[in-house]
């Protein structure tokens, strides 16, 4: 059950990352067009910078889930690597809880912010007069996806801790170390052709 949910959530976060990247590429086109129009025709699309800021916020937020899943967070593991395995697993759990706390914090206060925006109907103080609830709802939903990913992995870790299946715990939340991280990146660039 958990495994199947994980499969589905992985798929969602993978697609989210693709859409986020594509959206940023579109932003590059929009900003490029803006520069060319401003220079050559002395006119402006107006608000390209504001819109790219919203796209940036949303794209980043929707990518956090993949970072949690792929253990992409920077951890300084000099001391960690010197420790015996049980202690390392304890630190992995502590780190994962800390990460959850950070996302809970962002999620909680982010949600308060968005709630306030929706209730008061706040509008950006720019020529575009964007109703801020639109970009903020997209943004906070991305944080929501990250939290869902965290909760799911937390459940799987709990199950594996109860079964004393430490290998599975390490695989879910252990430190890849910088070497592992770079290897993942290089494997990806191998397929560059």
């Amino acid at each position, binding site marked *: 059950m958990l495994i199947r949910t994980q499969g589905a959530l992985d798929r969602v976060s993978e697609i989210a990352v693709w859409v986020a990247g594509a959206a940023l590429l579109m932003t590059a086109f929009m900003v490029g067009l803006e520069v060319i129009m401003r220079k050559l025709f002395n006119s402006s699309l107006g608000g390209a910078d504001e819109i790219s800021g919203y796209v940036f916020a949303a794209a980043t937020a929707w990518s956090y889930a993949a970072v949690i899943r792929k253990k992409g967070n920077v951890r300084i593991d000099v001391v960690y690597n010197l420790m015996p395995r049980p202690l390392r697993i304890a630190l992995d759990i502590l780190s994962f809880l800390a990460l959850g706390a950070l996302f809970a914090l962002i999620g909680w206060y982010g949600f308060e912010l968005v709630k306030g925006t929706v209730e008061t109907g706040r509008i950006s103080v720019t020529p575009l007069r964007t109703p801020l609830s639109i970009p903020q709802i997209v943004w906070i939903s991305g944080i929501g996806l990250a939290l869902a990913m965290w909760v799911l992995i937390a459940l799987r870790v709990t199950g594996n801790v109860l079964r004393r299946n430490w290998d599975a715990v390490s695989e879910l939340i252990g430190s890849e170390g910088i*070497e592992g991280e770079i290897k993942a990146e290089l494997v990806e660039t191998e397929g560059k052709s």
Partner: protein
Amino acid sequence: MILIVTFSLLLLFIFLAIPVAAALGLLGVVLDESFSIMPLRRAIGDMMWENSIEFLLVAVPMFVMLGEIMLRSDIAEKMYDAMAKWLSWLPGGLMHSNIGSSAIFAATSGSSVATAATVGTVAVPQIDKRGYHTPLFLGSLAAGGTLGILIPPSVGLIIYGLLTNTSVPKLYLAGILPGLVLAGLYSLTIVLLCLANKGWGGEKISISWSERFASLPNLLQPLFIFIVVIGSIYAGWATPTESASLGVLAALLLSWKNGKLTRDMLLKSFEGTMRTTAMIMLIILAAAFLNFVLAVIGLAAAFQSFIEGLGLSPFQVLLIIIAIYLVMGCFMESLSMLITTTPIVVPVIVALGYDPIWFGVVLMLLLETALITPPIGLNLYVVQSIRQSGPIKDVIKGAIPFVFAMFVMIGLVIAFPSMALWLPSLL
């Protein structure tokens, strides 16, 4: 008191291998709870949002994407080939091509890791083919890669500019000359070591002048991207973020021209871009909150009065700060180091009468050193994992001479601040 609590907690969190972003964020909460008069956490939502939509930071994913596309577009292979034809007559042969290619790639990419990974992938197969001294060859790749954040464009300088409210175009100009001189110092290091040790420089390569000139068009592609990204800023056409977006479009055009633009390649580039961006942004968001708390509880001021209380001359303080960075750089990843220390250190530096643009260059040099000093030197690991066999000790050993070249460079920039400040003064 605040000083001691802050630094010891931060060190504790970091050495427990807690993710850097979580460590910074939680430290902010703890300090807020213990020292601030009214809880600042309510400001978190606003702060996250304002930083998330910051237009200057949009340059970060743009530069990452630019690098990801270039990496998959054959641009590096052609450039390396041309540099090899022009530089390999020097004692040390292709190692100069490593440095030259890194410098050129740095002029199109904002990241040191991307530079080391790209040039390294092309260069490593040459070691055995031509019998180079393996450690020095690997060291030249790790060190050459660090030029990525000094020669503009640079993600490091953008983040520094944002945190210190200094002009990114000026910072870019300030990085050019020191970047070129540092590349020259690297080459000098290689020449000296190869003259002193027979057999380190590999077999001689002879190339005719006609071959050299025939290879020049291969340099046009990186040149094109450099002109788009940097030229558009100084022609007054574009802001740093806009120029980064134009760079992405230029790279896309080249990858299409080289026949490398496919759906699969784009999706891979997106994945790489978003993973790196999300990782960086999470640290930036957490650091923004921490910095806000630190400002309110007066940590920067406490640090400043602590430094003043020492009764040292500005120059002595500068040396101490540099020494701290060098030690810290052995254990911390450079980007986290940049984001966490800048808001605390730069006000002190400015109060001492130093120029923040100049210090930006010094700081980039210190971060570059951090990238190749063990045990945590990201570029060492990058080069090692490209190589895939042999001990990492080789890379570390080979990087040491270049660390000394960096020390010389830091000394030069301190002795002659105009190296960094002359070009920006023309703006």
